[in-house]
């Protein structure tokens, strides 16, 4: 029996990076085995996944050493294989659901056929294979749906299905549940259990070893090498926000706010909520419960159709978004909506510069101090000259957060700050919340991570279908 995957002394170094991303790594995966690869962000998990799938150095340029043998010693070296060689033998699934769909098909069924078309499978055989896979993976009910209209979890399952349809015996997954909510993540986990039970060889990379609980074996990667145990990083120095004029925290009052979208959907129904100055509140709820709609009322991105929002007894009506930005700092869920500068430092200073602090006496120094403090809080001081898009997704999110912190907001609003972060990142975000609170700021966060919510916030508010379900009064 030929060994499906045999990695021998693999070393990968990307152009422009001083250190190799993988350093002399050797791993063997047996037929039908489910191997987990755990490691922090940047440890080399993605590089390993890409190499096994035959993408390095053909698609992703890098200098390489060693071999990655698929199907035994006499088999194909993934790093020298031509594009078509590994098709149908090794499949790979990435973490971002929407960018894995071909983006050119109008139904899920056609999406699944896409890979078969490229393989040159006769059309008469396609429907049979597609139906079988949809049945197996429990997505038959999605067959005629439009891929872009599906939820993240559903899209990810379709993405996995579209690979499985091509019939690979080896499946590589690079953090498949990273951008999914708990429901989606559970669905993907169940799917993997089924595939493993059916005998597929699985290579599964995750940053959280707990997610790899169902694996037969787990290998730990750190700084490109296999290690027996992960060294624990020194805990984040306790953080403090001491720059800026001592702002007394701002109380946020939401008075009977309702919001109806132009297409008629009532996202918020008569919500009243009082958040005291300097309080930290977490808002939880299922997708579609209205959490994001609610917090967007706070900085003017959305306006209530009924009711009003008050910041310290001053209503927000009529004040444009860019002026409310001086008081309410909003960190978006997707950093890609904001980042455009060529270095972290310039990016972080964009916000304070826009707030018109430049042009007044001594302001350049003020901005500088704010930027320094923000970089230090997010642990990005060493990366100030790096292009934000050269950082991994979790640290890019921290860059966006730093950009908001540097605006010295009285109210800090965070949209899903824990999603896409590894455990150290989540810890850091929690410490930032605590530090801002200690500096007297009000912090409001949307999250679906209950552990994160209960640990770092004074109050947890639950939303369901546009209403507050459970909102304990502020602690006295």
């Amino acid at each position: 029996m030929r060994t499906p995957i045999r990695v021998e002394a693999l070393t990968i170094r990307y152009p422009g990076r001083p250190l190799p991303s993988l350093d002399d790594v050797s791993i063997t995966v047996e037929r039908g085995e489910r191997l987990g690869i755990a490691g922090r962000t940047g440890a080399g998990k993605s590089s390993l996944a890409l190499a096994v799938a035959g993408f390095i150095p053909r698609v992703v340029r890098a200098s390489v050493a060693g071999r990655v043998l698929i199907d035994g010693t006499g088999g194909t070296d993934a790093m020298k294989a031509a594009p078509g060689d590994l098709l149908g033998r090794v499949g790979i699934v990435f973490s971002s659901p929407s960018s894995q769909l071909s983006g050119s098909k109008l139904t899920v069924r056609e999406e699944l056929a896409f890979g078969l078309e490229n393989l040159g499978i006769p059309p008469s055989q396609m429907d049979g294979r597609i139906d079988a896979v949809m049945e197996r993976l429990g997505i038959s009910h999605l067959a005629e749906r439009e891929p872009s209209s599906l939820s993240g979890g559903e899209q990810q399952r379709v993405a996995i299905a579209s690979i499985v349809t091509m019939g690979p015996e080896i499946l590589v997954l690079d953090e498949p549940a990273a951008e999914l909510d708990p429901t989606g993540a559970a669905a993907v986990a169940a799917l993997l259990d089924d595939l493993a039970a059916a005998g597929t060889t699985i290579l599964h990379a995750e940053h959280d070893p707990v997610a790899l609980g169902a694996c037969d074996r787990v290998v730990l990667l750190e700084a490109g090498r296999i290690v027996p145990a992960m060294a624990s990083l020194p805990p984040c120095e306790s953080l403090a926000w001491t720059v800026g004029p001592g702002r007394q925290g701002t109380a946020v009052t939401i008075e009977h706010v309702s919001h109806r979208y132009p297409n008629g959907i009532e996202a918020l129904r008569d919500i009243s909520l009082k958040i005291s100055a300097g309080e930290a509140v977490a808002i939880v709820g299922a997708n579609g419960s209205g959490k994001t709609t609610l917090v967007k009322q706070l900085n003017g991105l959305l306006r209530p159709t009924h009711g009003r929002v008050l910041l310290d007894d001053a209503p927000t009506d009529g004040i444009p978004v860019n002026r409310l930005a001086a008081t309410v700092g909003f960190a978006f869920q997707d950093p890609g909506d904001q980042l455009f500068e060529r270095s972290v430092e310039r990016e972080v200073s964009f916000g304070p510069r826009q707030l018109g602090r430049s042009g007044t006496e001594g302001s350049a120094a003020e901005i500088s101090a704010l930027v320094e403090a923000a970089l230090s809080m997010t642990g990005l001081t060493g990366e100030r000259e790096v292009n934000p898009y050269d950082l991994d997704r979790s640290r890019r999110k921290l860059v966006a957060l730093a950009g908001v912190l540097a605006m010295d907001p009285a109210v800090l609003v965070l949209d899903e700050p824990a999603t896409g972060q590894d455990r150290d990142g989540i810890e850091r975000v929690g410490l930032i919340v605590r530090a801002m609170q200690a500096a007297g700021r009000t912090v409001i966060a949307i999250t679906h991570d209950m552990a994160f919510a209960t640990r770092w916030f004074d109050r947890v508010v639950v939303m369901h279908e546009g209403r507050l379900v459970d909102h304990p009064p502020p602690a006295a």
Partner: protein
Amino acid sequence: MRGIATDVATGYYIAGSSRLHRRNPLTKLLGLLFVLVAAFLLPALSLAVLAALLAGVAISAGLAGALLGSLRIPSVLVVSIVVVNTLFFPGGRDVMLEVGPLSITQQGLTFGLVSAGRLLVVFVASVLFLFTTLADDLLETLVARGVSHRIAFVVQSAVQLIPRMRHRAAGILAAQQARGLSVSGSLVRRLRVLVPLVGPVLLASLVDVRERTLALEARGFGARPGRTAYRVVPDSGLDRVLRVTLIVAILAVIVSAVAGLGR
């Protein structure tokens, strides 16, 4: 989200089962080409014939109402063509009417009406084509005739990307305003706003390109020759006859126009 994607991704398409709908996309494309060639190469009188023909097709396909509704798209352009050329035609000799300092010339009026007529006829034919043809079907047909399936993919991919990107652009507008960016004010201010708005669109899209490329490669895009097609586009004997007729007609028009050059 679904609404956005469907509206723009299916474009002008109006579902139906008329005989026009059922024609093969290539047949319809040749029909459009015929109208285009005839409108521009044949004498102006043919425009009336073409217009009547197209109106008849529209009515028989039940698209007359939709067609009339769509005429608002080129309305400003058509009016402008007639007005500007009637009043301001260089080389207009025969003056028909004096309107203050301007004069309506016969040459100008003719040119304006003929140009507007041609554009309208081409527009109507295009719209009827788009009403009854799904882009995916059109592309699949072209691929079967030799157009690279990778190019067809680029078109399909772009078509679906556009609504998402426009949605995203609106989101970026909001996100940058939340960082204090002001989008109103003087022209210079508004110009300066361009980079923080366009920047994230471009950069995030470029980063996206990397991920999409990996996903495409994972699905074997372009890896092997001999790509097969899942989607079946119906073709019939009637379509084949029509196509031959149309090709002959197009060639006839071209030849008569070239021969007529010597006049």
